Structure formats: structure tokens, C-alpha cells
């Protein structure tokens, strides 16, 4: 699987060809970073400058205090939106971890009738997104009386991110040789002790990948939150941001400051698991 694909030996690391490639690489990086550079720069502009015609590339007057006044903007209760985002993402991630780890472990270690059906079911949910079920979810939560609550969004986020977590952890558990488990059991360790002291440390990278990927996906969730969370204070940052758009004198400097606050941490987290992302997403079908 891709997780363990050996690095190709490096060739042609110097010379004019390398210089050409590096220059092209710089251009590629710039294209991918450009919108986010505009965000960062825009978040430091004073209000008149961000709506100036024609616009300036850099602020004439840098306004770092945008990041302070941001929290009391009238469009949306931003501190509460941040709390909502954090609570929903953290709880959903913990829930995914709690239910996906045992399932991944057991399906990797044991064969039983129904195993394939279970794994296919999990795989099928990766192909479904809350968007296509939003109408049903909305009605279900109204009936259950939990519409417009954190709980509803924790459940939605957890259910639709299970698949990635189960699959990546499954592949890591499957890569641990059974002999290691058996040796620990022979030494008198119970099954739970073996899992905790022997197996878990070996599959740690898989767990970290699952946690980060789930957390980032929950953090960015938009479509279901838009329909299910109707109270301003309950909405995550992704939905709160839309309160600014469409107004004639949009406070773009705040839109961008919110975006920077929301994007910077998850980009850093994603960079940590960069090498293992593909393995989990493609569920073992890319070799």
C-alpha cells in the first residue's frame, strides 16, 4: 500500500535542469498559495482600503487590530462561533475514535461471517455525504428534538467521517504481525493489555492520521451545519462567514481575518499527516 511505498532514489538533484524545475515549482506553489496570500494581506487592511477602487496590492496602513475588533463584529457572535466549531469538531473526533478503533482492530485481526458486508457498508458511507441526506437529517433531528444543537452536528460529523478512520486504522492494524500479539499473550498479557501496550503503540501513526483528518473535515463542515444549525450562536465559523457575504459594504477585512484564524491551524495539522493522507482516502485500492 501507499503508506509503505519506498522512496524512489533521488536523481538529478543539481545543475541547470534542477534550477529550471525549482523555478517551475515556485510558480506552482505561488498559484496554490495566491488566494490565501490575498486573505492574509486583506485581513490587515483598514476598511476603506479593502473597498478602494482600484485596489492596492498591499495595505498602505497595516491594521493588526482587525484581529482584535473582529471578535465584537455585529454580523455574527464570533467568539461563540469559534466555541461551536471547537466543541463540535473535538467531540465528533473523539466519538469517531471511540467507535472506529475497536472496529478497525477487530476486522483486521479476525475473520467472521459478515465481515465483508460490514467493511463494504463502511466503504459505502465514504461515498455518501451529508449534503445528499441533508433533507432527511433535518427532518430526523426535528422529530428527535435535537435540531439546532451541537449534538446533532457531532453525530452527523462522526457518522460521515467514520469510513476514513476505520479504513486507515484497519490497514495499520493489519500491518502488525500477529506473532507480536501472540508473543505478548503467551507472556501472560490479557487481550486488552496486549492491545494497549503492544499493538496501539505500533499503529499510533494510523491513529494520528485518522484523528487529524477527521478533525479537519469536521472543522470545515458546511452543508449540514447550514441546514441544521439555525441559531447564530450555534453555527460554526464556516457558516458564520456567510453572514458577511452579499452585503453592499461587506466587512471583507473581517471575512479574511476569520478565514485566516480558521484555516491556519488546520493547514498545519494537515501538513503533519501529508504523506499518509492518500492511503486512507483511497481505502487500499491504490497500490
Amino acid at each position, binding site marked *: 500500500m501507499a503508506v509503505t511505498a519506498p522512496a524512489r532514489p533521488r536523481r538529478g538533484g543539481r545543475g541547470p535542469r534542477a534550477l529550471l524545475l525549482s523555478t517551475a515549482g515556485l510558480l506552482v506553489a505561488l498559484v496554490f498559495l495566491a488566494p490565501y496570500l490575498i486573505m492574509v494581506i486583506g485581513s490587515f487592511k483598514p476598511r476603506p482600503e479593502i*473597498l478602494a477602487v482600484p485596489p492596492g496590492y498591499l495595505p498602505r496602513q497595516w491594521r493588526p487590530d482587525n484581529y482584535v475588533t473582529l471578535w465584537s463584529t455585529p454580523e455574527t457572535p464570533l467568539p461563540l462561533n469559534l466555541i461551536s466549531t471547537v466543541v463540535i469538531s473535538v467531540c465528533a473526533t473523539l466519538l469517531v475514535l471511540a467507535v472506529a478503533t475497536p472496529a478497525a482492530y*477487530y476486522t483486521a485481526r*479476525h475473520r467472521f461471517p459478515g465481515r465483508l458486508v460490514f467493511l463494504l457498508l463502511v466503504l459505502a458511507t465514504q461515498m455518501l455525504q451529508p449534503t445528499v441526506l441533508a433533507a432527511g437529517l433535518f*427532518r430526523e433531528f426535528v422529530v428527535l428534538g435535537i435540531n439546532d444543537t451541537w449534538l446533532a452536528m457531532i453525530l452527523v460529523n462522526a457518522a460521515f467521517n467514520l469510513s476514513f478512520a476505520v479504513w486507515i486504522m484497519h490497514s495499520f492494524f493489519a500491518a502488525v504481525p500477529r506473532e507480536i500479539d501472540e508473543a505478548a499473550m503467551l507472556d501472560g498479557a490479557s487481550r486488552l493489555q496486549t492491545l494497549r501496550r503492544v499493538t496501539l503503540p505500533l499503529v499510533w501513526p494510523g491513529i494520528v492520521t485518522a484523528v487529524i483528518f477527521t478533525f479537519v473535515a469536521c472543522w470545515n463542515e458546511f452543508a449540514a451545519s447550514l441546514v441544521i444549525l439555525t441559531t447564530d450562536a450555534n453555527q460554526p465559523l464556516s457558516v458564520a462567514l456567510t453572514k458577511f457575504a452579499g452585503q453592499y459594504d461587506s466587512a471583507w477585512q473581517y471575512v479574511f481575518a476569520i478565514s485566516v484564524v480558521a484555516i491556519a491551524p488546520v493547514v498545519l495539522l494537515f501538513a503533519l499527516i501529508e504523506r499518509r493522507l492518500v492511503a486512507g*482516502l483511497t481505502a487500499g485500492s491504490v497500490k
Partner: protein
Amino acid sequence: MSRADPAPTRSAPTRSARARWARTAAAGPWLVGVLVLIAGVVLFPAGYMLWNSLRDISEFGVDRGPAGLENYQRLAELAALPRVLLNTAVWVVGVVVITVLVSLALAQFLDKAFPGRRLVRMAVIVPWAASVVMTATVFYYGLDPFYGIMNHALVDIGLLDAPYGFTKNTVPAFAVAMGIAVFVSLPFTTYTLLAGLQTIPGEVLEAAQLDGAGRIATYRRVVLPMLRPAIAVATIINIINVFNSLPILRTITGSIPGYSADTTTTLTFKLIQADRQVDTASALSVVNFVLVLAIIVVYVRVARPMREH
């Protein structure tokens, strides 16, 4: 892996059936959490949505009884429907094809060794990690004909004579939205293809070149066939993501009145939110759901993800 399992005895079918059940039951406690979540938050709402699509539901959410196929009929009679279906096809096919083609080139490039490659790869994942609404919003601002900095930059580098209202009319706004959808789909696709490229042994490429194959021939005859599974998976996952995409069109074409720039997904959300027609929205969602299921069936057939390692 089945070494530890007791071998089924052919002479005692009832005992072996009971043993099979016991093995499934033993797995229960380990799987129950996942099963409950999938049943409650995926399967139940899917069924409930199907039920709602056959009911008459008021705009305040009151179920006023059975509606037969009226909701589907209302949907079929929607004047904008042909346009919305055309938009959906253009949206999904256009975005996915362009994404895969650009990603093939990008993956090939990022597979080469050069100083700074790691940093370039890091830059490429940023749109993947970032919230799609936020990415779409900065494009919406940047392409504003008056204060938009991207518009301004296009004029400064000579690609435009004057700022252009990209987001003001249906067709250019839809095209811009497609461009943004490609932009945010590139990281995942490129990484998937890159993982595929890294499984091709260097010796295979060298052998092809020794046999006198040129670069293009090597790529077409050796690299592309070996990339086939990676391309299949990336394509299917992209089709699902792009089909379900709401934030980009909502941000870029949301202020354009009517349904001329909608896909079936964005239309569903307009029906739920603006028109408060949950019953019609449910009917449309069921149609979307069936389309997605059809794509999944193709996925399982083509990519055969269940192949054991």
C-alpha cells in the same frame, strides 16, 4: 488470517452454522458503535427522506398526509429543471475531467526530484485543508470588477483590458465556480496519482527506455496503464465530491436570481432554505441519492477496493 479459526466440520452442518453465528456475535461488541452511527445517521435519514418525498409537508414542517408521487411530479414540472440537469452534467463532467488532466501533469512534475520539492508539495495541500467556503469567498472578492484584486492583477499583467464582472452573470460566474472547484479538487487528486506513480518501479521505466521507447511512448504505454487504478479511484471520489459540492456555487452564483446557475445539489438547498419545500426537496434528494448509489456501484466494480492486500 483464518488460521486461528476452527475448521468447519462438514459432517455437522447445524453445529457449524451455530459456530458461524457465534463468530459473528463475538464481533458484535467491537462493531456496535460504528453500526449504530451508520444506522442512525446514514441509513435512517435516507429511508426517512424517501418517506418524506411521498408526503405533503407544510412550510412549517407539519406532515399533512400522503402525497403519492405529487412531489416528484412537481419536480418534473419545474420549468428550470432541464437547465439544472444540464448544469449538473456540465459541472460534474467538466470539473472532474479538467481536474484529472491537470493532476496527471502536476503529479508527474511533483514526482521529479528537485530542490524545494517538499515545500511545493506542502503548498499544494493548502486548498485541501482550507475550508472550501472560505476559499470560494476570497475568489468572489478577488474577482469583483471594482475592488477585486485578482481582476486588477489580470489587467496589470495584460490579460484583460479592463476589469470584468466575472461573478455578475450566469455563464461566466458558473465557469468561475467550475475553476474554483478544479482548484480545490487538485490537491487530493494529485496526491492520489502521486501515490500511484510511486508504485511504478524505476526499473520498468528504464527497461522501456532501453527498448527504445521515447518519453511519450513510455508514458502512454507504461505509466498510464499502471496508473489506471489510481486514476479510477481519484475519478470516482471526485465525481462524488463535485456532485455534492454546495459552497462554491452558493458563494459565487448565490446572488444571481432564479435557478439558471444551479445544480441539483444547490437547488435542493434552495428548496429547503429559501422556499421551505422540504417535501419537494426530499424528492430531489432521493433522485440525487439514487445517482450517487449508481456511481458507487460503478466504483466498486471498477476499482474493486475490497481486494485483499
